């Protein structure tokens, strides 16, 4: 019986997702200080007053300011991301701040949500202007690293659709990786041949190392240890 501590067939149980999410958020905070940390949003349902015994939730990374470079410039394909200044951390500026074509700031929210049907995590995201108006997919695609986007969108692994967020009653974009369990299995093979099963704590790190690239969020290699 799967206690939820193992990754079986490339899939996660809901308990495994909670464990993997926290491990991911911790590693991100440690190794990826150029970006704000992910937070865990518990699903305490407003209309169902008693909270769940097993805490379910999703990971959230919000208000990421993205300033896309003009097409001719950098060889560096990763996103030009500026951090939000908060009272807690000092702004770390690694980017060339170039205004995008529309001359306005675009903000992005990312949520990693567990799908009970497919037993894998799913990335939801949305973009909006400083006034709060949602960005269309065409505008969003211009903000994403062009090379990664065209590659990944044409592959059979991923596509972007607009669907209702499972909990927020609003339209979001969803990156639906059809073959998640297959490529997680492939990633697990390397652990198995090294003599150990992929621990569930590494699931989201491995998953995000692929999926994050579509939306231009790179993770440092140290996180994969």
């Amino acid at each position, binding site marked *: *019986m799967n206690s939820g501590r193992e990754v079986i067939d490339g899939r996660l149980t809901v308990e495994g997702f909670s464990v993997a999410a926290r491990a991911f958020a911790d590693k991100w905070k440690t190794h990826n200080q150029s970006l704000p940390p992910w937070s865990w949003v518990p699903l305490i349902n407003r*209309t169902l*007053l*008693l909270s769940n*015994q*097993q805490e379910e939730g999703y990971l959230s990374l919000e208000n990421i300011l993205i300033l896309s470079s003009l097409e001719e410039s950098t060889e560096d394909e990763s996103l030009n991301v500026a951090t939000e200044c908060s009272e807690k951390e000092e702004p770390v500026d690694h980017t060339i701040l170039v205004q995008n074509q529309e001359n306005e700031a675009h903000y992005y929210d990312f949520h990693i949500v567990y799908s009970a049907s*497919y037993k894998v995590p799913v990335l939801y995201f949305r973009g909006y202007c400083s006034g709060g108006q*949602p960005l269309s997919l065409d505008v969003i695609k211009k903000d994403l690293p062009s090379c990664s986007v065209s590659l990944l969108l044409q592959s059979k692994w991923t596509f972007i659709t607009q669907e209702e967020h*499972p909990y927020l009653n609003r339209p979001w974009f969803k990156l639906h990786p059809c073959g998640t369990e297959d490529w997680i299995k492939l990633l697990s093979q390397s652990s198995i041949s090294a003599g150990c099963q992929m621990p569930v704590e590494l699931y989201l790190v491995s998953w995000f190392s692929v999926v994050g690239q579509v939306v231009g969020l790179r993770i440092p290699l140290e996180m994969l240890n």
Partner: protein
Amino acid sequence: MANEAVKYVWEGAIPLQIHLHKSDVASHPAPPPALVLAPRIGYLPLLIPHIKPYFKDSLPPGEDSIWFDYKGVPLKWYIPTGVLFDLLCAEPERPWNLTIHFRGYPSNILIPCEGEDFVKWNFVNSLKEAQYIINGNCKNVMNMSQSDQEDLWTSVMNGDLDAYTKLSPKLKMATIEDDFSRKASLSSPQSRQGATEMDVAGQVKTARVPVRLYVRSINQDFENLEDVPEIDTWDDISYLNRPFEFLREEGKCFTLRNAIESLLPEFIGDKAQTSGEERSKDDDTEEADGLLREMGEIKLARIQGIEMKLEIPFSWVVNNLMNPEFYLHISVLVKAPQR
């Protein structure tokens, strides 16, 4: 040959009275409402070709972006019409009075619907998800020929159960079975499609059933359904798109109550499943009435417009009352647990 219950489901319809929103009225006098019979298993945007002729002369110039609301709540077009009705009208309203808009699509709340293709895409994706849940993969849907997929969708759009019954075996959906349905099928000549997958499915220890649960929680008790307050926003409803899982075991059978309670563990309090275990219920919920009151109560469960007795075997409910995309949609009204 489809059985009686499935025919009943496919023939179910809701009489609608559709009013043109006053901001879209560019004619004088304003047009009378349109009367349309909406199939329960269908979707509102599919009715637009029947409704638009009534109003086209009254519309202001410009492009249409059509949406519906019920008492100010924009209707989610990707939820089957019958489910919307069961959920939003505690006391069934006949005809159901809806407002149609041709402008001002609330795209911050509703995902876009720019034609029949959007509705079809939504249906096919739900079907894939349901198949993934039942079979463990969605290769049969993916491998279906383009024309078969088209024909399947057309049969649903037209409410053509005969055409659907001829095509759906190509999906090779495993049957959803527990001890009750196994015994029932042994004693009756009627057989469900998907027989070829039964052997494979029989080897699977954990069965999963696609369920979409729409939960409305009310704080106070009520005598009549008319006393149930109206919904102002979708935030008043909890939507759970989560499969019901159970272990196939000899002698085990689940009721509708078991299924709903396992999806809403809040309502059985301390007897909630231990972590890591499959959600299978075989215990009685009869004990400690007082405890139940503290925990909350399922007041009403509606499926296909029927107010269900909660003790009905769940496998019967699923096999007979599911929608064409193989999802069972359940509208539940609960009295919230007292603190």
